[in-house]
């Protein structure tokens, strides 16, 4: 079915959904791409953010206003988690980090199950059914906001990493941990800061996602695999890559669903992923491997 009246809106749907994937992947590309921490708890931390936004909404705070609370709150959670649990329990070994984050993820999910039950929760905002008419398609307002926010967030993260002292320190730690320590950089603090910033991105993603999605203890699984794919596809540690990768995957999934049937739509994602790994293993925006 390649009727332009359906194809063009499908591409727009793909772009807006891709922006959501990019939002979730931006934090991961910092944690996974720059620091090489395979963070299996990324989905669970997104879930924590979504519950935070849900309860703030219940207390009368609009999900978008919740940004000013959730971003710092998730930063503190991420910093504390890396400083007190992941960093200490991993003893500097990447394999340990993988297992520790997996363990953290299981603990967080089960705590959520215990405290919040398995109930699926949603928020009803006055703008949930608001639509923006783009001429060829009606796009829900929350999706337009998520799309624009993904662009802004990617730009902010790029500025932070490329232009600030903290960013230079993060890059130094990522490139040569021992050398960074020798020139006086507090490596443990930088790790925790990076993890905190990556988790803070999830706070932003949660605020932008909840008006169009739901939260349950297992909601992280819905996004985390796609987020890992986006990071590798875009190039590890590349924010523009995460943004482009997210959008590409969104459009591929959307158009793939249209051509192959909705349940097979994800095949396209993984075909592109395999092709990227074969022909450009460093990712679309990553540095070429020597």
């Amino acid at each position, binding site marked *: 079915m390649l*009727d332009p*009246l359906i194809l063009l809106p*499908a591409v727009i749907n793909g772009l807006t959904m891709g922006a959501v994937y990019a939002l979730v992947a931006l934090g991961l590309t910092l944690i996974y791409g720059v620091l090489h921490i395979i963070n299996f708890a990324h989905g669970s931390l997104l879930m924590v953010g979504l519950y935070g936004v849900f309860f703030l909404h219940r207390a009368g705070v609009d999900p978008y206003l919740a940004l000013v609370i959730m971003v710092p709150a998730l930063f503190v959670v991420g910093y504390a988690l890396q400083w007190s649990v992941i960093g200490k329990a991993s003893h500097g070994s990447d394999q340990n980090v993988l297992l520790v984050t997996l363990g953290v993820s299981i603990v967080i999910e089960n705590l959520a199950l215990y405290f919040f*039950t*398995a109930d*699926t929760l949603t928020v009803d905002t006055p703008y949930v*059914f608001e639509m923006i008419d783009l001429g060829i398609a009606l796009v829900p307002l929350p999706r337009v906001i998520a799309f624009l926010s993904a662009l802004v967030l990617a730009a902010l993260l790029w500025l932070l990493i490329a232009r600030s002292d903290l960013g230079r320190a993060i890059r130094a730690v990522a490139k040569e941990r021992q050398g960074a320590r020798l020139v006086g950089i507090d490596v443990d603090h930088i790790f925790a800061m990076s993890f905190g910033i990556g988790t803070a991105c999830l706070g932003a993603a949660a605020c932008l996602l909840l008006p169009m999605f739901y939260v349950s203890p297992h909601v992280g699984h819905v996004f985390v695999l796609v987020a890992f794919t986006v990071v590798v596809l875009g190039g590890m540690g590349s924010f523009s890559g995460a943004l482009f990768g997210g959008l590409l995957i969104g459009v591929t999934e959307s158009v793939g669903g249209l051509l192959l049937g909705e349940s097979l739509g994800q095949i396209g994602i993984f075909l592109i992923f395999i092709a990227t790994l074969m022909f450009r293993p460093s990712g679309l925006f990553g540095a070429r491997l020597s």
Partner: protein
Amino acid sequence: MTRMNKSLSRRHVLTGAAAGAAAGSFGFPAILGAQPAAIKVGILHPVTGALSYSGTQSRFGAQMAIDEINAAGGIKSMGGAKIEALLADAQSRPDVGAAEIEKLNEAGAAAVVGPYASAIALATTQAAARHGLPHVVDVAVVDQVVTRGLMNTFRFGPGVKKTVDTAIENLIKINDAAGKPAKTVMIVHEESAFGSGMATTLNAELPKHGFEIVETIKHANPTRDFSNIVLRVQARKPDLLIPSNYYNEYVLFARALRQQRVAPKAIYSILGGGASSYKFVKEFPDAAAFVMDCNHWFDPRKAAALALKEKTEKQGLFYTYEVFMNYSCVYLLADALERAKGAQRDAIIAALASSTFDMHVMPYGPTRFVNGQNQGAQPVTTQILDKDIKVIYPLAFASGNVVYPMPERRA
């Protein structure tokens, strides 16, 4: 047990409490030796994992029934033996469900109630059959659950075929009564055995009754975005939309339909995840308005069903079908235990096989098992009217009048 609603009166409770207090104060030792041994019953559901919401609701319903039965004096024919729940978690996985059956068997369970999902039930009923363990199946609609000749398996609720047949029958009545305004149909279903089986049956049956199926769309679980599916619905403009999905996907789909202002003549779900959910009605009253669903539902005319609804809501829970189906299943089993006069598995299987239990909260006839399927089971068609879920068909159980075609809904 012949009456299911035999809760203790206030006087009984006070008398019992006073007697207990007196015995304690006079220092009488508890006569534990005279107490009949508790009957262990496995309550097996997926309380963690993807199906954990349904599993938790199911467990709650079963536990409510057990508490009531025990408070009312237990199983009388066994000297007032109490039912002891052995709570088990299938973790939303068939292999874990089967492993839990082994544990329940080891723990001496007399019978098992559960396990909600079809895929898990296929595994647990087979595992239970190896031990001759009676297994009352609560929901698990896939018909293979009861077509494999397992003598220990008794499904209380209706299967897919019965549900789809009833849904079509009720749909034809509704459409005919309104002058047949719907001619074209579009089906949107989830991809597991439950949704796919239903779509196959609908594709075979609906054309026989004059409906043209313009498209059938299958989607994955989970599906993160329904925008494209809604685009296709918009392009096809079906008179009738038949969704069949789990709750999360149902909510996203209904929202997307509402956002894109898609307005078919009716949305007629079959075992729709959200359409017979008070939660959906409460959280999205506009998107839910006038949606019809053929599903498991309680008999709104029965006082016991309404009392259970009140109790459930007092606990801060929604009164979902998992609650009242499991509640009824435990009473069905208690009735069999009463007639079996013992916890021997063979006797319980025989008692279940000959059950005529009718004191449930469902709009069913008396229980009658043929090859493990309750012939009295039937789904009903509900519609969301005035922000409430009303039964509209069959008319014998109706609590509301059908509104069809669907009026213009507020954008």
